């Protein structure tokens, strides 16, 4: 039980709790931002400025009755939200959110601010994103209801279609950085051009960033790609038959997937924890700022843009986004070889 | 570290489990799943042998086996769908018209 091991365990716990609170915070942020975009106030009764609203929501969800349709496959019905939530949390394990720290000299070796530093981190994120499809497919199937099945099938087909563009934009960044490890990709983005512009990959790969964010929004089933769970069309899609904590798990999984996509986007394109004025071990403040910026864009997009129809959505993914990602990859490869 | 024989024995056991599935199950999809188990057992042998020799060739062959398995699963399942349209059943005992 070296001090380093204890510190790593504590760090894992801290990250877990932080993710849980970020899901709760996102509930509040979404409702407030939606309200301001629609020129109303949003939650303001519970706690000062409505800040305790997520707490009230969680308590309400916990006290609801846990239902299950009689003809539903009990094992898969219970397993689906667990798979969704587990995949959402697991993907964040390889994201670096700060430099190394020795906790002011307490530890002999520096502790990396990351739950697991894997040298194939980019692929691990991709793998866990593919596992997240199962939660939705199983939820749609095991509910034994037509809305759920349609929503589940559409949603999973959408997710596996946009995984291609997602992976290709990741491949372009890996080509620029020369490594699959997220920590190395971030450290390759340190430094400045002309002392003013930071060497982030978003300046080298603007189209790649847009492709990644679009594919990420489609992967997390958020607007404008949320047809499979649109209220007007499909009741609630694949989580129609779920109530109480299972529904809360799906809900949480969606928000944490958003956080993970934003966190990976900041590591790949926006320089992770790098920023002026702060030392490396306080870099997690910059990281939080950048992730929050991307999450704000997520919420802004949801309440501003109309929703794609399902066939338009699939056509966009296969006929526009995938060729764009391939061309981006080829252009990046050519530039890397040409400019060395 | 565990000696190489353990990995090879495990791979053999997995291969025979897959074979048992192909012999014993009367459902086309489960037969295809058993074929996938066999392919995985072979992958394990390749990776273990590659690690034994200290080369990457084992992993590269595994890469090719996975790709071929994906292609084979796609075509196999397309065949299952086409067969299902004929006889409305997934049991391989319904497709015996070529038997003498």
């Amino acid at each position, binding site marked *: 039980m070296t001090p380093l091991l204890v510190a790593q365990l504590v760090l894992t716990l801290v990250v877990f709790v932080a993710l849980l609170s970020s899901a709760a915070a996102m509930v509040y942020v979404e409702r407030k931002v939606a309200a301001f975009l629609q020129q109303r106030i949003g939650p303001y009764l519970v706690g000062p400025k409505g800040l305790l609203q997520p707490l009230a929501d969680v308590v309400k969800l916990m006290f609801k009755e846990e239902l299950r349709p009689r003809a539903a496959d009990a094992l898969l019905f219970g397993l689906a939200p667990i798979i969704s939530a587990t995949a959402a949390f697991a993907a964040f394990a390889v994201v670096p959110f700060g430099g190394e720290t020795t906790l002011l000299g307490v530890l002999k070796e520096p502790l990396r601010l990351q739950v697991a530093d894997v040298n194939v981190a980019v*692929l691990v994120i991709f*793998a866990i994103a593919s596992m997240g499809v199962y939660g939705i497919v199983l939820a749609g199937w095991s509910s034994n209801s037509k809305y759920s099945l349609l929503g589940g099938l559409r949603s999973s087909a959408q997710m596996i279609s946009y995984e291609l563009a997602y992976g290709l934009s990741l491949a372009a960044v890996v080509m620029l950085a020369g490594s699959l490890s997220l920590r190395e990709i971030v450290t390759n983005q340190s430094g400045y051009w002309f002392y003013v512009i930071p060497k982030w990959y978003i300046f080298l790969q603007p189209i790649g960033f847009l492709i990644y964010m679009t594919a990420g929004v489609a992967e997390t089933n958020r607007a404008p790609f949320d047809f499979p769970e649109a209220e007007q069309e499909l009741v609630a899609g694949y989580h129609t038959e779920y109530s109480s904590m299972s529904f809360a798990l799906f809900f949480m999984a969606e928000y944490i997937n958003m956080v993970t996509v934003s966190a990976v986007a900041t590591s790949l394109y926006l320089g992770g924890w790098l920023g002026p004025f702060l030392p490396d071990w306080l870099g997690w403040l910059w990281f939080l700022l950048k992730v929050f910026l991307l999450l704000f864009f997520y919420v802004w997009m949801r309440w501003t843009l109309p929703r794609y129809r399902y066939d338009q959505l699939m056509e966009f993914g296969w006929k526009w986004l995938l060729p764009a990602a391939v061309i981006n990859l080829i252009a990046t490869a050519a530039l890397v070889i040409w400019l060395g | 570290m565990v000696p190489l024989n353990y990995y090879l024995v495990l791979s053999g056991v997995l291969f025979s489990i897959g*074979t048992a599935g192909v012999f014993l199950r009367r459902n086309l999809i489960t037969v295809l799943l058993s074929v996938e188990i066999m392919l995985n057992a072979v992958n394990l042998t390749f990776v273990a042998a590659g690690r034994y020799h200290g080369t990457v060739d084992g*992993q*590269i062959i595994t890469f090719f086996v996975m790709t*071929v398995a994906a292609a084979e699963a796609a*075509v196999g399942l397309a065949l299952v769908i086409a067969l299902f349209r004929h006889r409305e059943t997934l049991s391989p005992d319904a497709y015996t018209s070529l038997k003498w």
Partner: protein
Amino acid sequence: MDVVSFYIFAAIAVLSSIGVIGQRNPMHSVMLLIVSFGGLAGLYILLDAPFTAVTQIIIYAGAIMVLFLFVVMLLNAHTEDDSLPAGLGPHALRFGALLSALLAVEVVWGLSRVGVTGFNSDPGAASAISSVAAIGQTLFTQYSFAFEVTSILILVSMVGAVIIAGSRTRGGR
């Protein structure tokens, strides 16, 4: 520590594979096979092959099994009757089980004739094969022809799958 992890992952792989061939419902078989793939991925990590482990999850558990799930859902496979036709009787099952048990015994016996061979415990060997750069180098220089042929194979299988499973009204036979 390594030995314990080996036994744990091996147990996961073997037990879930037995579950795959034993389960009545194909949906549960598919989920158990995914668990088996997870166990195998753990074994690959023990063998210093992290790239293969992650690729296994991405390709097998993430893509091929989703395809199987879709087909199982499409064909309503869980309502299928799984019993043998009347003419064959119980001997077919016993014969099949005997053959596969025979295969297992043969393989294990054959391997026991080889002496216990340990792995190359040089740490340089482990890092040489676990780096993705080494895999990429060899893949694109020595095996480049196989790589290109594989891409054509995937294209052919895609087109073939669409034609074979395609709907009648599209002009197919």
